[in-house]
C-alpha cells in the first residue's frame, strides 16, 4: 500500500470539492473494500477522503411512503431497520446474505454499491487487466472463468459485480442521489452500474468527484413477497455464484406485477425486465416460472468454465418465484 494523505472533509460539499480538484483522491467510508484493494496495489490514491463521519446516516420515510437511506448507513443498520424488514424483506435478506456480520457492521450503503469486482485476475497485479489498466487485455476470458459473467460481457471484460445489496436495489427500482460540485442529481439504479463494453475500467456512471449521498426506495406494495436466494460454494461468507431477487404481486390466480433481478452473472446487477413482462397477466404456476427463467437467460453465453451458471440461474429464478408466489420468506 502506498502511503497517502488522510483527510476528514467537514461536509459533503467539502468532500466533493476536494475529490473534484484531485482526481487521484478516493473516498473511504467503511473501508472494507478499499483497504483490501489498497493492500494489493489495485489503487494508489494520493489522498483518502474519510467521509465516514459525515451526517448521512439517517433512514427516513419519504413523502411517497418509500424510504430515503443515507449513504453512510451501515449494511447492518439497513438490514435491521424495522421498515426495511417489514416492507422490503428482500433487501434485508440480500444484505444479510453478503459477507459477514463484521463486514456488514463496517460496510456502508455507498461503499457497497461502489465495491469492485472479485475477479481474481483483476485482483492481482501479476495479471494484466483491462479494468485495472485499459488496453492490457483480459486473461480471464481465456483463463479460469468459473465465476465470471454469462450476461452482458464484452471481449474486454468478463467480470461480475459482486454486490448482493445492489441486486435487491435494482429489483426495487431504487434511485441514487449523488452530489457533485455542480449540485445534486438523481440516477435510477438500473442506470447506475454499467456493462463493460469498451470501457470496463468504469463500473458506474458516477462522474469523477461525485459522492453518493442517499438511496431512495419507492414504495413497492408487493415487496413483502420479496425473496433473495443466493447460491454459492460455501453455506455462508462467500460471494454468489448466482443470486436472485424476486417479488410478485398476485391477485387471484393472476400475476399483476413481477420483479426479477440476478446477481453474480453480469458486470452489473441484472434486471430481467423481459421475463417480468412475460409474467404479467399470467398464472403464477411452475410452467410460467420456467418460461420466465428461459427468457431471462436467453441471451446468456458461456465461457469455458461457467456454463453451469446458466442452468443454475434458471433454477434459482424458478425457485425464487415459486417462493414469492407463496408470499415470500426464506428460500
Amino acid at each position: 500500500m502506498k502511503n497517502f494523505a488522510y483527510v476528514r472533509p467537514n461536509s459533503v460539499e467539502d468532500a466533493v470539492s476536494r475529490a473534484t480538484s484531485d482526481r487521484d483522491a478516493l473516498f473511504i467510508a467503511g473501508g472494507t473494500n478499499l483497504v483490501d484493494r489498497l493492500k494489493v496495489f489495485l489503487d494508489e490514491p494520493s489522498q483518502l477522503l474519510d467521509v465516514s463521519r459525515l451526517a448521512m446516516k439517517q433512514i427516513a420515510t419519504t413523502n411517497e411512503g418509500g424510504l430515503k437511506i443515507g449513504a453512510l448507513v451501515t449494511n447492518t443498520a439497513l438490514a435491521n431497520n424495522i421498515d426495511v424488514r417489514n416492507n422490503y424483506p428482500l433487501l434485508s435478506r440480500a444484505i444479510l446474505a453478503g459477507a459477514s456480520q463484521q463486514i456488514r457492521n463496517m460496510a456502508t450503503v455507498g461503499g457497497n454499491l461502489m465495491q469492485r469486482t472479485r475477479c481474481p485476475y483483476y485482483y492481482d497485479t501479476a495479471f494484466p487487466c483491462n479494468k485495472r489498466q485499459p488496453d492490457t487485455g483480459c486473461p480471464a476470458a481465456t483463463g479460469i472463468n468459473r465465476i465470471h459473467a454469462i450476461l452482458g460481457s464484452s471481449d474486454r471484460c468478463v467480470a461480475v459485480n459482486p454486490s448482493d445489496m445492489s441486486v435487491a436495489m435494482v429489483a426495487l427500482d431504487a434511485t441514487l442521489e449523488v452530489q457533485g460540485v455542480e449540485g445534486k442529481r438523481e440516477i435510477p439504479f438500473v442506470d447506475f452500474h454499467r456493462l463493460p463494453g469498451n470501457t470496463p475500467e468504469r463500473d458506474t456512471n458516477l462522474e469523477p468527484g461525485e459522492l453518493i449521498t442517499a438511496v431512495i426506495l419507492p414504495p413497492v406494495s408487493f415487496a413483502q413477497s420479496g425473496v433473495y436466494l443466493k447460491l454459492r460454494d460455501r453455506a455462508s461468507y462467500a460471494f454468489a455464484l448466482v443470486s436472485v431477487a424476486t417479488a410478485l404481486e398476485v391477485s387471484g390466480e393472476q400475476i399483476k406485477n413481477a420483479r426479477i433481478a440476478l446477481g453474480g452473472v453480469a458486470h452489473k446487477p441484472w434486471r430481467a425486465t423481459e421475463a417480468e413482462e412475460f409474467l404479467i397477466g399470467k398464472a403464477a404456476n411452475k410452467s410460467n416460472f420456467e418460461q420466465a427463467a428461459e427468457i431471462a437467460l436467453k441471451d446468456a453465453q458461456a465461457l469455458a468454465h461457467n456454463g453451469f451458471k446458466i442452468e443454475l440461474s434458471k433454477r434459482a429464478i424458478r425457485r425464487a418465484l415459486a417462493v414469492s408466489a407463496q408470499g415470500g420468506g426464506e428460500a
Partner: protein
Amino acid sequence: MNQIIGTSVSRKDGRVKVTGEATYGAEHQIPGLVHGYLVTATIANGRIHNIDTKEAEDNPGVIAVFTHRNQPKIFQPSNGFFGLYESRLPLADDLIHYAGQIVGLVVANTLERARDAAHLVKVQYQTEQPQVEAQKATYQKAPSLFGEDFEFQEGTFETGDFSIASSDAAAKTEATYTTEIEIHAPMEPHALVAHWENQDSVTVYEPTQWVKGSQRTYAELLGIPVEGVRIISPYIGGAFGSKAFPWPHGILCVAAAREIQRPLKVVVSRRQMTANTGHRSQTEQTMRLAANKDGKLKAIEHTAKTCTSPVKNFPEPCTGITPVLYATPNMRLKQEIAVLNVGAPTFMRAPGENPGMFALESAMDELAWELNIDPVELRLRNETKEHQRKKLPFSAKHFAECLKTGAEKFGWSQRQMQPRSQKQGDLLVGWGMASSAFPALRSSAEAQVRLLPDGTAHVLTSANDMGTGAYTVVAMTAAETLGLPVAKVKVELGDSVLPNGGMAGGSQMTATLTPAVLAACQKVLETANAQNAPEAFANLRESGRAAYEATASSAPSEESKKFAFNSWGAHFCEVTVDEEIARLRVTRWVSVINIGRVLNSKTAASQIRGAVIMGIGQALMEECHFDPNTGYPVVYDLATYHYPAHADIPRIEVNFVGEPDFNFNPMGVRGVGEIGITGVSAAVSNAVYHATGKRIRSLPITPDKLL
C-alpha cells in the same frame, strides 16, 4: 491413584489462548526488529532477465534488498530425514520454476514500507510456456518417499495375478476418481523472527512441528554448530503438515538477518502462501475391484497419478493404505508422478491415505451397490487380520467394532436401500458411510521432569502443541503417574534447549512423547525414593533440596516389531440435497474411532471433529486452480479458496472403541490427528449417491456438479 487418563480435561494452554496472551512465532517483540517482505515471481517458468531494485532501495525506511545477485550466505544442508520442503535454496539462481517463487526480499523498518518497496522491485523475465495442467502432463513411475520401513512405501506392489482373478469374478467395478489441489491454509500464516545475538548464534521464533529438526537443519544451512541455533515455538497456529521443515522464506529470513545483524521478521502473505508453503497434489486414481457373489474381494487394482514440482519430488502416496484395509489374494498397486510448474507439494493431513481412501471407499460403495450388499456388511466380510504388504498381524485392531458401533449409533438399519428413496419435505436425504484408517507411527523422544518444593511438577520437552492438545496430555500423563492434580503440573514445550520431544507429524507425537513423560515421571519418583509426588515433596522439604529432576527417553521396542500398528474407524453421515438449486448440506455425522487408549476424551474428540471437517471441506469445496496460460494461481486467498465455515458443519458425534494398545507403547496410545480425515470425502460422496442416484467421482462436489 487418581484416574486422569481417559477423562475430559480442559486445555492446559487454554487460558493463555482465550485471553490472547499466547504468543505465536512472529509475535515475539524484539527491540530493534525490522520487517522483511517477499518479492515473488509473476511467471511460472523461465528466468529472470533483469531485476531492478533501485527504486525499492530508495524508498524511505528500506534497509536492504536481497535478490539472487546478492544471495545471503546459505549452505546446502545434508539430506537427512526429508531435508527441506523445497530442495532448491532461496535465491539460488535466476531460474523460475513456479509462479510465486521467491525472487527477492526487501527489508525495511516498518511492515508498510517493506511491502511498498517490495512492490517497487521491477523484475523482467524471459518467459517459457509453463505446464500446470495435470491432464496434459507426462507421467512416470513415482519414487519411494522414505524407503521400505516407513509407511510411505514405494507406490508399486503386486501379489497374485490381478487379471486371472478378476476374469471370472461375479462382480467387477472400474472407475476413475479425481481430487483437486488442496492447501493447508493454517490460520496462522507462515512467519518467523530471526534474531542473531552475535555472528554465531541465532534465535529463531518460528512455528515448527519439529523443533529439533529445524534446529539441526538451520544450523547446516547457516554453517554454524547446532548449539548456535535456538528455536522457540511455544504455540503453533495450525500446520497440518506444512510447518515441519524450513521453507525458503524461513531460510532467507534467517540468512538475511545475519547479513544485516538486526532482528528480522518475515510474514508470508496469505497469497504468497498459496504457492510457497505447500499443498496436496491433485490426484487421479483408477480403482478396479473384483469380487465373488458373497462380496469377498478377489482382486484390487489401484493406480494413482499425482503431480509434483520442479523443486521437490514428492509423490502423494495414495496407494499405501490399500493393502491395509481389505483382504485379497490378488493386488496390484501402481503410482505415477508428473512434474508441473507449481510450488512444492507436501504432507497434508493423512498424505496419501486421504485421497487414496476417497478412491478405495468410493469403489467399495460402488461394489456394494453392484452386489446389492449393505456397504457395512461388505467391509466386514473383507476385513484383513494382517498387513498384506508387511505380512504382520495387526495389534489391538477393532475395525469391525467401529463399523458395527457406528451403524448402531447412526441408526443405519433404518436406511432405505434405494437411492432417491429418502425424503425430508422437498429435500432428498442420503446416508453414506466409509471406513477410516491411518497407520500408527512412533519414534523416540525424551522428557525431563522436575519436582519442586512448592508442590508443582514441571515437564520439559522440545515437543510442541499445534492445537493437538499436547500440553494437556503431557500434563495428564505426568499428573496420573505422579499422583498429582493436573493443575499442579506445568508443561514447557517448543524450545530447542529442552530435551528432544520428537516431531508432531504423522500423528506420532502423543504416542512418541507420553511414554517418555511416563518414564521420566517414574524415574523422578525413584530418584526421590517416593511412591508419588506428595511423598517426594515431603522428602524434598525434609532434605532441603531445591528439586528432584530426572530425564528419560522412550523408543519403540524390539517386541513391537512383531506387529503392524494401525488405527481404525468408520464414518456415517447424512446429507440433504435440494436438487433443483443444487444445494447440498451435510446434516448429521457419527464417527467411531479405534486409536488404542484415549488420553483426553475432550481434546481427542476435537481432533477427530477437526479432521472430519477438513474432510468435509475436501468433499464439498476445497480446490486450488492455476491459470492455464501463465501458471499463476487464481485461487489464492481465503475468499477464493473456500474451506468450511460454521454454517457448513453439523454436530459431529465422536465415539472411541477398543482397548489400550500396549504392544505399541507403555501408554497404549496410538495417534489421533489424521485418522479422522480418512474416508470422510468418500462417506459424503456415497451419501450423495444415495440421495440423488448420482455418483460423483471428482471432488469437490460443488453446485455445478450436482446440476
